[in-house]
């Protein structure tokens, strides 16, 4: 906890006053985290306990997705998530606007941290597909229940494949192929590309917009859907 306290201290100096009327419990959290000395240390301990419980609860909720992560390994991930969430909460305390209870706001950080850690841990050593090869498209068609008998659906997939080649930048293609075609988690792609969930999602979003427009232009989507 000592190194955690140091990380927290570096990020919470000169915090401005709160902006909105708060419930008593949320106010107590903010006052404690903005205090000094022993009062602040106690508030940080309480926050760490709260976020560790949240991380464990979330890891338990997702256990069916990652059954191979268990025991000490899982608890270690939860502790790392709680540590990082405490640092994030204290660094972003100014961003808490009082629109929710403080604990709800803080829970979100624990959930985010544990979800990223679980996904990355589960993917360790995995290879991210980088090409929209025939196997990818065959699997996609099979998953969607598309056969050659469903001519329009098969046409749509063929048109999409052309559009990916012709409309997307190399980065957009890389992200779209991994996330949309091969179901690789955005957090995993972000880790592999030294990026963030938000930045990778933006690349995916721009790629989808380009593809929708192209498919609409070529008559494969109606305009309302493409917009």
């Amino acid at each position: 906890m000592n190194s955690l306290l140091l990380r927290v201290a570096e990020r919470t100096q000169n915090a401005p006053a709160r902006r909105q009327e708060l419930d008593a419990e949320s106010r107590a959290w903010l006052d404690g985290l903005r205090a000094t000395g022993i009062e602040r240390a106690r508030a940080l301990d309480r926050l760490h306990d709260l976020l560790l419980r949240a991380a464990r609860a979330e890891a338990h909720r997702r256990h069916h997705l990652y059954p191979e992560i268990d025991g000490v390994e899982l608890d270690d991930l939860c502790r790392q998530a709680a540590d990082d969430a405490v640092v994030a909460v204290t660094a972003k305390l100014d961003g808490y606007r009082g629109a929710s209870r403080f604990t709800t706001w803080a829970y979100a950080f624990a959930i985010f941290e544990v979800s990223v850690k679980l996904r990355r841990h589960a993917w360790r050593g995995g290879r991210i597909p980088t090409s929209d090869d025939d196997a990818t498209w065959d699997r996609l068609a099979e998953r969607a229940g598309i056969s050659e008998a469903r001519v329009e659906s098969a046409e749509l997939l063929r048109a999409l494949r052309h559009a990916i080649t012709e409309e997307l930048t190399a980065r957009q293609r890389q992200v779209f192929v991994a996330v949309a075609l091969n179901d690789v988690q955005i957090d995993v792609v972000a880790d592999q590309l030294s990026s963030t969930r938000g930045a990778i999602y933006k690349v995916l979003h721009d790629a989808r917009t380009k593809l929708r427009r192209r498919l609409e232009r070529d008559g494969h989507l109606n305009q309302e859907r493409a917009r």
Partner: protein
Amino acid sequence: MTDNDLTTQLLGTAGEDAGCEETFSRLAEYVEGELSGREMAELLPAVAEHLRNCPACNEDYRGLVELVRVRNS
């Protein structure tokens, strides 16, 4: 799976999308609002759109709903 399902799965929906950072910053408010019976998808439509399009944020949203439900029970 219909063509519409397939298109939505691959291309997402086409409404205004708040993105991951903005959605994260409003998530606590969104969840508490929903659990108190407010129509948050109408109040924050770009957040709702993002939760439909981003599986990672959607899973986080579901986790937060569950945690708050348990805390409030």
